[in-house]
């Protein structure tokens, strides 16, 4: 994987397979602490303790067509290579939360990449899931919940290109504004 956004796409696909109806993807950049946090939280079928223990092993998968599942081990390896870790919390019948932490400034840390393309790909691929995207830069937060858009759309499908463009722009602008406001605040603080 060349971008962390691709890892997020991949991890979220697991949540879809787990039958989740609501999936929250969260990205948090904390520059003061030099940390980057990624989280995927779902309300899918969850995993037993045994499965959680095994899920970090690259030779475990729920897929039956082939015997290798690499998504979570790949992200774990990427996080650990950047002074971080990966944590899996899960409860049967309740859902699963995957957390990955990176040292923000680590030289081997992949760029976040194209987060809007990841979100649009997920929205289009599984429109019946309620998708929430949270982006935090220092203390500034942007939240995107597709429920409000779907409600407003009514019968118009998400795959309408004007809709895709609008949703994509909403995410791009949200991230950009969040960063700008946080950076301005930081600059003001630094001047004092």
């Amino acid at each position, binding site marked *: 994987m060349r971008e962390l956004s691709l890892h997020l796409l991949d991890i979220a*696909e697991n949540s879809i397979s787990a039958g989740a109806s609501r999936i929250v993807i969260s990205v948090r950049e904390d520059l003061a602490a030099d940390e980057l946090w990624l989280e995927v939280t779902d309300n899918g079928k969850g995993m037993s303790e045994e499965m959680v223990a095994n899920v970090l092993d690259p030779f475990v998968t729920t897929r039956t067509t082939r015997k290798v599942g*690499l998504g979570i081990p*790949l992200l774990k390896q990427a996080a650990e290579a950047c002074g971080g870790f990966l944590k899996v919390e899960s409860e049967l019948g309740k859902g699963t939360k995957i957390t990955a932490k990176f040292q923000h400034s680590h030289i081997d840390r992949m760029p976040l990449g194209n987060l809007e*393309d990841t979100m649009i790909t997920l929205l289009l*691929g599984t429109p019946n899931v309620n998708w929430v995207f949270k982006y935090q830069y220092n203390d500034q937060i942007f939240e995107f919940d597709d429920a409000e858009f779907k409600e407003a759309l009514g019968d118009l499908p998400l*795959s309408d*290109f004007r809709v*895709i463009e609008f949703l994509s722009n909403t995410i791009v602008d949200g991230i950009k504004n969040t960063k700008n406001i946080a950076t301005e605040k930081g600059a003001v603080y630094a001047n004092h």
Partner: protein
Amino acid sequence: MPTIKSIEDLKRLREEAQKVKELRDQTGKTQIVVGMGTVGIAAGARDTLKAILAYIEDKHLPDVILRQTGNIGVGGQDPVVQVILPGAETVTYGKVTPAMATQIMEEHVVKGNVVQDFRIEA
């Protein structure tokens, strides 16, 4: 479906009606399937999907259904794209870059000619 007893039943009924409608809508349409498993994503499937989406929009192709699926199961050939023209057999393409995807759309989906150079055995 048995007697409706709750709002949930009503919703289920609506969903079933919707599924029937979707099935009906899909006959006579071209289906394009992109494999979005771990390997597919790592190999660039997201960008390939985006190129196909952009082509559909650019040429205003209304009778095309674009679907995403997990691993299609042809090792070492990702990103994998499958094209199913109405009444025709599934054609599988391997290592599809965004540029190749555009060419497949142009030649196969629009003109109906399989792009033999990109075809793989599924």
